């Protein structure tokens, strides 16, 4: 197995994912990602010369809904999983734009 994920890369992936990883977790994550990259290498061995690039996994297209309001007020249900509620709003830790 080649070592391709540097310490910096795994730190950065942690930041992007909003995850705090300890040393053991970092090692585990590195080995998981290396395995995925190895799998991509394996796939790259396939001859895809005559295969058109795929941009979506589903064969369907043009699945639409009409512009009609079908939902009513579901606020009570929607707020059931809120960490904090105030005046019908979801409460979150102080955040600035």
């Amino acid at each position: 197995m080649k070592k391709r994920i540097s310490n910096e890369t795994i730190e950065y992936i942690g930041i992007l994912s909003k995850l705090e990883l300890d040393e053991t977790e970092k090692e585990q994550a590195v080995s998981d990602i290396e395995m995925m990259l190895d799998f991509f290498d394996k796939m790259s061995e396939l001859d895809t010369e005559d295969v058109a690039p795929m941009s979506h996994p589903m064969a369907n297209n043009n699945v639409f809904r009409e512009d009609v309001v079908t939902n009513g007020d579901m606020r009570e249900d929607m707020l059931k999983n809120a960490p904090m509620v105030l005046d019908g709003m979801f409460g979150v830790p102080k955040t600035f734009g």
Partner: protein
Amino acid sequence: MLSKYDVTIGLEVHVELATKSKIFCGCSTAFGAKPNTHTCPVCIGMPGSLPVLNKKVLEYAMAVGLATNCDITRFSKFDRKNYFYPDNPQNYQISQLYMPICRNGFVEINTCAGNKKIGIHEIHMEEDAGKLIHDEITGNSYVDYNRSGVPLIEIVTEPDMSSEVEVVTFLEKLRLIIQYLEASDCKLNEGSMRVDVNLSVKKRGETELGTRTEMKNLNSFKAITRAIENEALRQIKLLEKGEKIQLETRRWDDVKGESYSMRSKEDARDYRYFPEPDIMPIVISNEWINDIKYKQPELRDEKMQRYIREYSIPKYDADIITSIKHMTVIFEKAVELGGNPKKVSNYLMGETMRLLKERNMEAEDISFSPVNLVKLIKLVDEGVINGTTAKEVFEKIFNEDIEPIEYVEKNNLKMQSDESWLQTVIEQVIAANNQSVCDYKNGKERALGFLIGQIMKETKGKANPAVVKKLLLENL
């Protein structure tokens, strides 16, 4: 100093589309509802919910693309833009990066420098985010997801503009196109049209563009103009001092008349775009494009020609009325209700424009009923009230949308043609203005106007001016 530099400006314009329901779910888009009453598992980003594209969003985006000379992308799809922020409940925004719906268009503008084509790089569809409210007392933030999932199109221009005049001219034209298509009301002050300005400066003659900044929080054309002037000057001053321009996003403070840095693009968020697997790709046929073209509402130039042809109003009038979409709605309704086109036009171009300007209002805020304007015109035509009174009554209609027939009756504003009553007033005025009478007799025509004015004043503007003139001449 300024003349040694060129300014280069490109825009990113977000427009909220006028659909009834959200882009990926059946929640209402109506503005001003109680927090979170227009939400469902899709637009608050619950795991396992399945978004489905609102067809009308696609059709509006295509209509705007066609009206701005874009190519419609025949195979289009959505992508996920990943970032963590509480107003974005899924932790990604469904947008379009790789295959936006429209590309390579232009809008032609006309300024005193002549005609110029402003390129449209692309138009893509995406969802709006929720609203964050910060509470000083509890120290927490609160989120209302009613706006989450409201459909947007983002129009990205080429960096083809070089002054605030060109930017505002372009935006006014773009806004009018979108309003005529009825794809959005495009209100800058309410956020249904949001403009970000990308601006850089370079020494005249240099070929390479300078480092750009992005300016946000521009809520009016006035703010856009001021922000551009301010930012160009800020960058030029830095360069003159030998300093470098930072690639960054800045926020405009219109009260202070200055901008401040929001975040540097160097530590910009890594959005890790990838194809959105939940939304199926979009395939657009020639028939569909033709259908959108066929259903396109009448745009400004066509409307202007039709007004001249059908209603026989002067080109000057047609030009002014069609410069504001909402004005055309009032005009057409009033004419349909039997108002004489030229007389309706006069009220819109004259008094309405004057009152809008005086009160610093947008034409969209006009709230009077066209039927009341038509009734007012009829009162004048039938000789029930005179022009002076009509002006006064119109202001009442403009302010409070009063019913003019009842109003005139109640306030005793009918035109007075009773000759014996007017005779008494005229005698009083003549007696009190001997000098003017004398001047008139010595050939000063202007004195007659003065005397008529005095009589009108005495009758509180209600006298029939024709009768007044006739009687006055008899008396002199």
